[in-house]
Structure formats: C-alpha cells, structure tokens
C-alpha cells in the first residue's frame, strides 16, 4: 500500500474552543489507484490532504507513505519526502509570484533534482499554457493559475498526487482536458491520485469515492 491513514484525528482551536475536524479517519491508497474525496465545505477535506502530504501533523493515528511512518519523521526528512515523492495542487495554488510560469512549473522538479524539459513541454501543451510561459502568476486568470499549479505537481512525476479541487475554476471542457492529463500521468507512472472535489462528474472517473461527514469517512 502506498498511502495508509489509520484512525487519524485532528482538532483546531477556534474562537469558541477546540473544534474536532477529523475524528478517526482511516484510508488506504494503492499505487496506481485513484480516489475522489467529497464532503461539505469545512468538513476537513483539505485537512486530510495536508496530513497525507506531511504538511500538517495529526493529533492521533498513524500515517504511512511507502511503508514509512511519517509522523515519526523530522522536519527535514518530511520535507525530503514531500519534495520528491508527493505532488500537491493546492486549493489556493501557492505559486511563487516572483517567478515566471515556466520557472514555477519546473520549480519542484528542480528542487527534487529531476527536471525533464521535454516532459514539461508536453504538460504545458496538454494543459494549454504555451502562451503564458513568460508571464508572471499575477497576470494569469484563476483557471490559468490552477493549471500552472497542476503542471508543477505533475512535472515532479510524483508517486502520490494530491489535488485540492483542481478543476474548481475551470469550465467543463478545460476541466475534462486537465483531468485527462492527470489520469494519463497516473496511468503512465503508476502514481496514486487523491482528488478533493465537489464535481460528481469528476468523482465518477475515479476508481473509488469516499465522503467525509462528521469527521469520519462514509
């Protein structure tokens, strides 16, 4: 199993005391498998994604990536794992404003030390970003920024691809092109994909679907 979450719990301290967002979430994901994660706004979907990437530390439960217990790792080791094994498409994109689109796309791959320009140009082509390469993120539309974030995550050829509403800002046809690109990569590299989505159409295309409600998976 590539990714395994067991009995994960997580609370945040809000204005009126602790809010328990995850109350024992267990989830497994095999290499090459695709999964859709749905749920109401504020139910904790992004939180699961962030925990899976080792960005957020759960309060309880265990988390294994490729058989390694992530919770036991130090900051540097987790960063190392994230850099080379995990591709993330953030809900807020998190592009680097002072770098061009091209540099943003190649950024994580060159951090991981495996930049592949031919692969990158394929991605750019497929995601329809060829005209924006020299621009800076601030002059891009929301949907364009989203595609840059997707290209950046795919360019690393990660073992685990995590995407937070990757088609939220896209029209139907672009959304389906983007999805095709993602599934294509997953198919080619044997990566696993977890997508947070509100779109039933997108969820349909995944191998499995889970729904988060009341802090547990249904």
């Amino acid at each position: 199993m590539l990714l395994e979450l067991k009995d994960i719990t997580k609370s945040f301290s809000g204005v009126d005391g602790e809010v328990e967002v995850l109350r024992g979430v267990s989830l497994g994901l095999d290499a090459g498998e695709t999964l859709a994660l749905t749920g109401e706004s504020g139910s904790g979907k992004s939180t699961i994604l962030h925990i899976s990437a080792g960005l957020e530390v759960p309060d309880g439960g265990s988390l294994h990536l490729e058989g390694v217990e992530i919770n036991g790792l130090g900051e540097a080791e987790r960063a190392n794992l994230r850099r080379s094994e995990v591709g993330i498409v953030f809900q807020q994109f998190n592009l680097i404003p002072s770098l061009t689109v091209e540099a943003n796309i190649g950024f994580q791959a060159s951090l991981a030390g495996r930049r592949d320009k031919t692969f990158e140009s394929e991605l750019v082509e497929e995601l329809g970003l060829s005209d924006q390469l020299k621009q800076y993120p601030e002059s891009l539309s929301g949907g364009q920024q989203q595609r840059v974030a997707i290209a950046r995550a795919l360019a690393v050829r990660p073992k685990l691809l995590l995407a937070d509403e990757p088609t939220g800002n896209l029209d139907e046809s672009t959304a389906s092109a983007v999805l095709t690109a993602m599934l294509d990569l997953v198919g080619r590299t044997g990566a696993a994909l977890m997508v947070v989505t509100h779109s039933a159409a997108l969820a349909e295309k995944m191998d499995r679907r889970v729904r988060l409600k009341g802090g547990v998976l249904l």
Partner: protein
Amino acid sequence: MTNTILRALLSYWWRSPLQLFTFLMGLALATGLWSGVQAINSEARASYDAAAATLGEGQFDQLVPRVGDRIPQSVYVDLRRAGWLASPILDVTFKGVRFVGIDPLTTPTQMSSSSDSGFSLEDTDLIFGNAEVASVLEGFVEVTIDKSIPPGIAIADIGVVQRLFKRNDLSRLMVLPEQPIRRPDLVKIAPELVVQPSQQIADVAALTDSFHLNLTAFGFLSFAVGLFIVHSTIGLAFEQRRGMIRTLRSLGVPLSNLLSLIIVEMGLLVFVGAVLGILMGYTIAAMLLPDVAATVEGLYGARVSGTLSLRPEWWLSGIGLAFLGAGMALAVRIWQIMQMPLLSAVQPRAWAIASAKRIRGIAILGMILLGFSGLLALIGTGLGQAFALIGFLLIGSALVLPWLTIKLLDFAPGKGVITSWFWADTRQQMPGLSLALIALLLAVSANIGVSTMVSSFRVTFVSFLDQRLAPELFVRVEEEKTASALEKYLLERELEVLPLLTVERPVVGQPAKLYGVRVGRTYRESWQFLGADPDVWDQVSKGEAVIVNEQLARRNNLWVSDEVDIAPGLNIPIAAVVGDYGNPQGQVVMGELLFRKLYPNAVATSFGIRTTDTANLRKAIQADLEVPDSGIINQASIKSMSLEVFERTFAVTAALNILTLGVAGFAMLMSLLTLAGMRTPQLAPLWALGLTRTWLGVLELARALGLSIIVFICAVPLGLALAWALLNFVNVEAFGWQLPMFFFPADYAFLGGLAILATLIAAAWPAIQMVRKPPATLLKVFSNER
C-alpha cells in the same frame, strides 16, 4: 536544490527593484551616517596622535624661556655640560607651516635613528612633510613627502632649519626621560628657563575632546536611527515574502536549507548595502572634513589633515554596525519563520497587533527613565552623569511616545463613520509605526536641541566679540623700540591706546595666559561680567584684584572674592569673572602697573587703538613708523574671521542635521511601506464598499501628516530640554563655560516644516501605490484567503 531556492529568493528582488533599492539605501544610509562621523573623528585623532608620536608633544617635560620664545644656543651647551640630558628644538612658523628643527641624535621621539616610522633625519638635509605642506611650500623649499608626518608641519634637522631662517638660537629643549642621578638645579645653570611638565603642555586631544563629543553624540544618534532603518528594511523584506517562504516549504524545501540560504542572501545584500554606505560615509566625511579641520584649528589651534584616508577603524565599524543591526533584525525574523506554521495564513499581522497593554507598560518604563533624568538634573555632577541625563531623557521620551500619540489621537476631530474608522485604524497601526515615529522624534528633537545650543552660542559669541574687540584698530610690532615709539606717537595724537601685555604661566596648576591691561573708558564701558564686585575696574587698576575668565573659575571652583596665584608666592582676589568663548585656556586679567611690576621683561607688542578714522590712521602709522601692513588689523576683519570659524561649525552641524532628518524620513518610509503591504486586506473591503482608491491614498497622506504633527509637538519640548541639558551640564563640563539659552522659534518652525515634508514624501509612495493598485489586487483579497 540550493540554486533553485536561491534563485527563487533572489527573484523577489529582481521583480521588485524598488524594494531592492530601498533595502540597500536603508542599510547604506545607516552605515554611511555612522561611518562618516567616525571617519571625521578618527581622522582628527590620527592627526593628533601623529603629532604626539612624531613631535613628542605632551609626552616629555620641556624647558622653555621665562620670557619670549628664544633660547640662546650657549644656554643649551651649558646645560649639557652640567649633565642635563636634553634635546634642542627650533620652531619657526612660515606660511602657516610650522617648521620643526630637531636633533636626530638626541631626540627622545620616534624620529631617532631607531625609528620605525618611514623616514630618518640622520645624515640628511632633507625636509619632510605631508603632501599638503609640500604644495604650500612649493617654490620656497623642496619638501620630501612622507605621509606619517602630522598636518601643517615640516620636519628637518635643526641645522637645516637654522640655516633656512638664518637663526642661531633654539625655541625649547625636550628633557629626556632618563637623567643622571645627580644634576644641578636648573636655576643655577639656566635661571632664564622654566620646566614645563609634560601634562601641562596642552594636550590637543584633550582640548578637542569636547568637539568630538558632539560628533560622537551625532554618531550614536545616527547609529540608533540606523538600527531602526535596518530593522524595518529587513522586516519589510520578510513581510512581503512570507507567502513565498511558506510555499517553498510546502513544496519540500527543508527549513534548515531555507534558513541558511536566507542568511546567505541577507549577508550578501547587507554587505553590498554596507559597502555603499561606506562610500557614502566617505563622501560625507570628505565634504565636511575641511570645515571640521577649520573649526578645530580656529577654536583650539590644533591641526587636522584636510584630506581623508580610509582607516580601518571607521569603515570596519560601519560594516560592523550594518551586520549587527541586520543580525538582530534577522534573528527576530528567523525565529518567526521557525514558529510559523507551514500552512495556515492566520494573522499575517500578528506582530503588528501588540496589545494596548504592552504600549502602556513600555510608556511606564519610559516615565521611570524620565524620572531618573530629572533626578540627575537636580543632583548630578560630572560629564558622565550629564550624558546619562541626556540618554535617559531621550530614551524615556521615545518609550512614552507611542502611548502619548494614542492618547492624543483621542482628541482627534470628526464624528462620521469614515473619520472614526480612520482614527481607530490609525491607533491600531501604532505598534507598526512606533519605531518610525520614535526615529522621527529623536531626529527632530536632536535637531532642535543642537541647533538651539549652537545658535545660543552664536548669539553669545557675537556679543562677546563686540565687548572684546572694542578697539577699532590692532597693531602688532616686532621690536621693543618700535613698540615704545608707537605708543608715544599715538599718545601725542590723544588717542586711547590699549597696550596688551601677556605672559603664559600656570595658574592654579594649569596653563593659563596672564594679561596686563590699561584700564580706561573702553574696558569700563564694554566689558560685561558673569559675576563682579561693584568697583571691579578700580580694584584692577590699583592692582588689588584681577579678573579671570569663566573656564578658569569653573574648573577650579573659584568665583568672585576667591584668590588665585598670579606669580610665585603672590595670591590675589578675583574681582570679576568674565565670559570667554571659543578658547579653552584659563586667562587672568590684571592692571598694567601690577603686571609690569611682576613681569618687568615682558613687552607690549600688541596695541588696541580707539579711533574714528581707521583708514587714515592706518596709513599714517604705516608711513611714519614703517610698520608693515600685515601688522595692522582692522577690528572688522578679526570679527569676520572669528565669525567665519563659527559659520563653519554651523555648516557641519547643519549638514548633520539635514542628514539625520533625511535618515528619519527614510525610516518612516520603510515602516509605511511595510504596513501598506500588510494592509491591503483591510483596505479592500472599504474600497468594495465605495471608497475610491484616490480617497484611500489621500487618507494615508492625512494620517502621516497628523502623526508627524503630533511627533513635532512632542519634539519641541524634548528638544528644548535637550538644549537646556547641553548648555547647563555638558558645556560646563566639556568646555568650561555656561551659556545663556536663547529661543529660535522661526528655526523650530522651519525644522518642523522639514520633518513634516519628509514624512509626507515618505507617505507619498505607499499612497501612490494605493491609488494605482489595480482593482484586481484588491479583488484578490476576496477570492483568496491569503
């Protein structure tokens, strides 16, 4: 990976060159001001040190004639025969250059043959001097250039100087530190000489200390303001890259790599900024140095080289300041990054929201410090305490300012929704703005304080010149014969003649000048005293009492009716104390008769003359008595010369004033930019609710205007308190005189105008940014959580 991260970090500067410029400028200004002042100080000190090292001034006892300034060669021969070990020196001043002839075989100074300085006088007829001296003497003698020689001095073998000026005598003898156990008393061999102990030879470094004290104070002020700037500059850079740093980490950049690269990046930038600052400091110092040199020479007669060299003590300390300030700011920021959660964008303004409680706590601390300074004002004595007083005063006021500003904002006018939002928002920004406001307060009040002191000095000095330079014409003659002829000539014409008799002699154990004056209408009418018996001049003319200057009185804790020793075994009461500015030495003024009785060998070679017709009298004296034109000086020209020295001090002070104000304006700019960057999310809703961007920009300007007015209102009393402390404590301790304080409201208004202008310029940038901000940026606030 390193390259990728570094490129991402540096891309920020590449994309925002203005940010880079302000960052480097902030550092450069801070470093420049500090190192400029240090450069001037160290150049002057190096000049004195060179003088002490090469000429042995202040290090060795000397033998000098009781009267006049010449010692026959035979006296020296007698002394040596009797066993005294001494080295002869001949001083001749020509064209403003002091020729010092020494005997390389016997001199105890570093110019002996074993010297490690670059030149040796042994077996050579060469004359050595620095480049300036060489160019002054061009065409007269050839000077071999040597950098180690102090400014304004030419050194050669004593024989060479004697031949050059056709002299066969000496000026003084330097007593070697090691003497035979038995040697006869000086009185027996050479009664015409006296020993001048080494400490008594006015140590130029000590005399000019007060001047350097002023500069050092400025240096510290700029240091403090500089630290503020470096702090805000670095704060701004981090505030704006917070998002990027978070993204980098979430993409898998380990914290340790990120931090070390940030340190490398900052180190590089700080280095570049510091080097720019050193260049700036060099330029400032090179521009001010001639004025400083002229001031120091005019006031104290000490020579300072007019050209600047790059000395490690100031440029290293400048770079040190930059790295110290940057290191402190960086430590805070790095700690923040380490605490910063990887993901949540919660409260980017967390540091700016310090509770009102904290501001109040700091204000209480400030008031305690102000209390200390008040206490010191009541009971303190000594220079150290005077400075502690000023330090407590400034730091205490700085700490109270933010709280006071918030309190004053309560009185702000306006009831409308926008106005009350505006003032509430201003109060909320105080924590972020307080450093800049403090910098402004310190700069403005230091300006008010220092310029009040200097201007008060000027007013007093001008009236002092009017008293002292009452005679319209001054004549100086070389020979005794001419002197008596001149006096007779003038008396025949029924003019009031004021011969000036003078000797130098220790009084109360310190070097002083004794004057013999002819008491008459002029003295009675023009002199004003700080304290006096009713019939001062009667007592003085009868030889029953003397007048001393303020320096002498204060240093020795003497006042009217105390006694001073004016000749061996003769103590005489003080009838009056007179203000005497621009001269560090003690002076004793006595009646002509008494003086002639005590020092019968002294001859008046200098005369003041009261006349209504200076031009004709001048011509007549020249024609009838063959006095050279250079020997006759108009009162007006002395006055203007003295005032010129003063103007130069003024120029230095004014230049430093403008600089500190500029630096404070810059600190303001940095803070406002930092805040502006963080405030978009707060302003965006207002914009969406219908306030135009122009309006928002105008409000930012209005805020800056309001705050600078408040700061200025606080700075006036602080500046005056500072001036009062400078005049009543520091001046008395450092210079030996107390000055009356005058007020210069027009100057303060001008300064206030400058400060407000500087703030408005600083506020204009963020305001323009606001006006030009694309609506998309404002809208993004709504589409992104960040």
